[in-house]
Structure formats: C-alpha cells, structure tokens
C-alpha cells in the first residue's frame, strides 16, 4: 500500500490483498500482545514483586524467575499467543511469496548485474554450522531459501510494527551514530547487513565514502543489491563473514553492526570484536546497536528474553545479553561509550548502543 513519500517501494507486495491484510492483522496482534494492549508486562512484573515480597527476597535471576512465571496460567497463554503470531507471520509470508516465486527469482536475476553498485557473491562460500538456525522462526533461516531476503524484509516490517518497510529504523540509527572525531570517513563497513537498509542509509549520510555491506547469506545480499539499485545508491554488497572479512588491516573508518551480536555464539562474538578492531584504523568507530544487557532488565523482560531464545529461534540471544560486550570491546583496543537502554526491539526487550573508538597502537 502506497504512502506519499518519494522513497521507492522496494518491498515487493505479497501475492494478494488478503495476504497483506492477514499480515496487517498479525502486526496489530503482535503490538497488542507485547504492548499495553494485553498488558502482560506490568501485570507479570507486579506478580513477580508480590512473590518477592512473599519470599522476603527478590527473584534474583532467570533460574528463579522462569519457574515462577511458568507456574502462572497467564504466562502459558501469553507464550502460546506470542509463538502463534510468529508462526502465522512466517507461514503467510512464505506462502504468499511462494505464489510469486518464479517472478521474484527472475527479478533478482535481472538486478544481480545491474548498477549502480555491485554484488559480490562467492560461489565457493562455505557456510558456518552456527548460522544454520531458523532465526526468529523464519523458515530456512537467513540462507536456505532463495527468497529468504524477501521473507526477512516483510517479516521485519511486521516485527517493527510497520516502521521498517520504509527503512525508518535503520535510517534513524545511522543518523544518530557518531563519526570519527577527525571527521575523516573514506570507507564504511556494514557487518551482517541483511537486506542492506543500513548500508544505503550510510551512503546517503556519507555520500563521498565507499560503503560495503557484508553478509553470509546470498539471498539477503541479492535482495539488498536489488533494493540499493532501485534506490539508485552506489554501494557494494559482498558475501563474507563478520568474523573473517578478509579486508586489510586499518582499512575502514567506520564499522557498523545492527542487531548482529545477539545472533552469534559467544565464541564468534569475540572473533567479530577482534576483527572489527583489526580492520578499523586508529580513531575509527565501531557502532553497535543490539539487545540491552540483562543487568538492566525487569523480571518480565528477563523472562521474555529467555522465551525469545528458546521459543523464537534466538538460541544465542540470552547468552549475548549476559555477555560483557563493553569489556570485550575494551580488551580489543576500543574506548567505549554506551547509550542507556531504550526503544523497543520489537518485543518486550530494549536495545542499546555501543560506540567504540579504536585506540591507537601506542
């Protein structure tokens, strides 16, 4: 459905109007479940407070919170409904785009070699087992379906409650990200760029810079390239891992990672941090937006984070929220500034920013 903005529509329509209105329902239902509509958060936090008072001590961690919440019938119903809306979303997105499969694949092929910008796919690319996960319950995860990029783009439109189909989330985060203190921005690397919304936002903010988006998923990169061409934005999309970018030392002035880290095992998180330190020049900035640390979470948010990990295809997210990312960045040679948690991550959790400046070798 169109709006009055001049930004080109890059998200393909689903096959029929009834599919769009079905997904519109899911978007509204999701907002109701996870927001003030159903009011789970406030009521379950009150229940946790009452339980803490009864015990004479707070529910200290997820090991104490989980059995308490799971003993409440309301939590069971909440969990059923949250899981159901996610299943409904992916089922309908995949079913509807599946009806247009040949058309969409032909369109991707038509854009692959078109400019501006370029698409670098690696025919010998070897997938990492850790990435073989159906993240957020997306069928086939990020790479097993050739239409995965389209699925993801429409899925995140629903996830971000309609704010993502025009790239609003990414554009806002890019616009508030700090640049290096000396103002020099020649090259920017967008790690795990998915469908490239932040990649093009960076090019629009820094038009003289070379901007490269990398991702392990071919289907994401093809959709990203198509989208950038449709916007007329000259960026490169390249099939590479964030933990092994194969770019030279000190090559970039900026590295950006939006909601990447919570989808990595702890082992890989450390590797990505060290890789970012390697490819950034001294004074360069590594900007990260991701789930907030669990230290700042209420009992309900801690429970939802656990639920999201176990029941919503996010196996690494709980470990990430318990991980000391600031400490890892400092150990890798960064000076770190963080933002207070805020803003929704599409669920009950919140997000925060890490702005990490590469120290000079001395």
């Amino acid at each position, binding site marked *: *459905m169109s*709006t009055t903005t001049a930004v080109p529509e890059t998200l393909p329509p689903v096959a*029929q*109007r*009834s599919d769009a*209105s*079905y997904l*519109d*329902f*899911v978007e*509204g*239902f999701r*907002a*109701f479940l996870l927001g003030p*509509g*159903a*009011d*789970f958060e406030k*009521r*379950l936090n009150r*229940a946790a407070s*009452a*339980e803490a008072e009864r015990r004479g001590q707070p529910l200290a961690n997820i090991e104490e919170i989980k059995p308490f919440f799971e003993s*409440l*019938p*309301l939590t*069971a*119903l*909440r*969990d*059923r*409904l949250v*899981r*159901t*809306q996610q299943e*409904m979303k992916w089922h309908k997105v995949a079913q509807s785009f599946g009806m247009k499969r040949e058309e969409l694949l032909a369109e991707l092929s038509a854009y692959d070699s078109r400019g501006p910008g370029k698409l670098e796919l690696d025919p010998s690319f070897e997938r990492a*087992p*850790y990435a*073989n*996960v*159906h993240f957020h319950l997306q*069928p*086939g*995860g990020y790479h*097993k379906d050739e239409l995965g990029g389209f699925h993801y783009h429409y899925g995140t439109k629903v996830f971000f409650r*309609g704010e993502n189909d025009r790239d609003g989330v990414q554009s806002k985060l890019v616009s508030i990200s700090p640049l290096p203190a000396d103002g020099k921005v020649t090259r920017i690397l967008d790690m795990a760029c998915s469908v490239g919304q932040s990649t093009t936002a960076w090019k629009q903010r820094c038009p003289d810079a070379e901007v490269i988006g990398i991702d392990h998923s071919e289907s994401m990169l093809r959709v990203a390239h198509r989208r950038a061409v449709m916007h007329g934005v000259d960026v490169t999309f390249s099939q590479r891992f964030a933990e092994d970018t194969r770019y030279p030392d000190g090559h970039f002035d900026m590295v950006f990672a939006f909601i990447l880290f919570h989808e990595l*095992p702890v*082992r*890989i998180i450390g590797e990505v941090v060290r890789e970012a330190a390697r490819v950034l020049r001294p004074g360069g900035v590594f900007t990260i937006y991701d789930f907030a640390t669990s230290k700042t979470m209420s009992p309900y948010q801690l429970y939802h984070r*656990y639920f999201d*990990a*176990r*029941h919503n*295809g*996010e*196996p*690494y*997210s*709980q*470990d990430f929220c318990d991980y000391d990312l600031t400490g890892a960045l400092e150990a890798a040679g960064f000076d770190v500034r963080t933002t207070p948690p805020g803003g929704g991550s599409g669920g009950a959790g919140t997000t925060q920013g890490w702005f990490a400046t590469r120290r000079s070798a001395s």
Partner: protein
Amino acid sequence: MKPEEYQRQTPEGGTPIVSDHPVYLRDPVLDATVRMVVELAAQVWVDRERLLTIESLLDELGVVTREAIEHYHPSAARQTAMKAERDRFVNDVFKELRRIDPIA
C-alpha cells in the same frame, strides 16, 4: 521449506531451542483451540478489511471490480484510519486477556 528442515538446525551452544510444535497449555487440544481462535480472528479481519475497501471504492468511484479491490491504494489518512480500526478490532476480540489475574 520442508518441515524436517526445522530439525536440521545446528546451533552452537546457547539456549536449546524447542521442537517444531511446542505445547504451552495443559494439553495440546487447548493449544490447538487457541491457535484456531487467533486464526479465525485473522480471517475475520481479512474479510472486514475487504469490506472497508469495497466501501471506500464505492464512495470514491461508485463502482467496484475485483481488480480495483486488489490494487486499491488508500490515502495516507485512510491508511491511518484503517490501522486504528484494526487496533480496535484486535482490542475488542482479545480484551479478555487483560481481565485474567496473573496470580488468581
């Protein structure tokens, strides 16, 4: 995507993910019932959205065709009104959730 693909995931550590069809309520029949209720609500909304689209087309053009319904692009103001109508619909159907006392 074949259903067995879900079982072929290979996460490295982290929180173990549940099986493909988890049961949250006291028995699978209750889970299925809740899923059917939500699915039915979605289908009702699909029909209501179509009816509202037909009404808009009749207001604007005085005539309705299947193709016009399929390709109808509401104005920004109309879209905002439709989102508000959708949110009212969801609230009306699911407001019972707010009435459950968590510790009753």
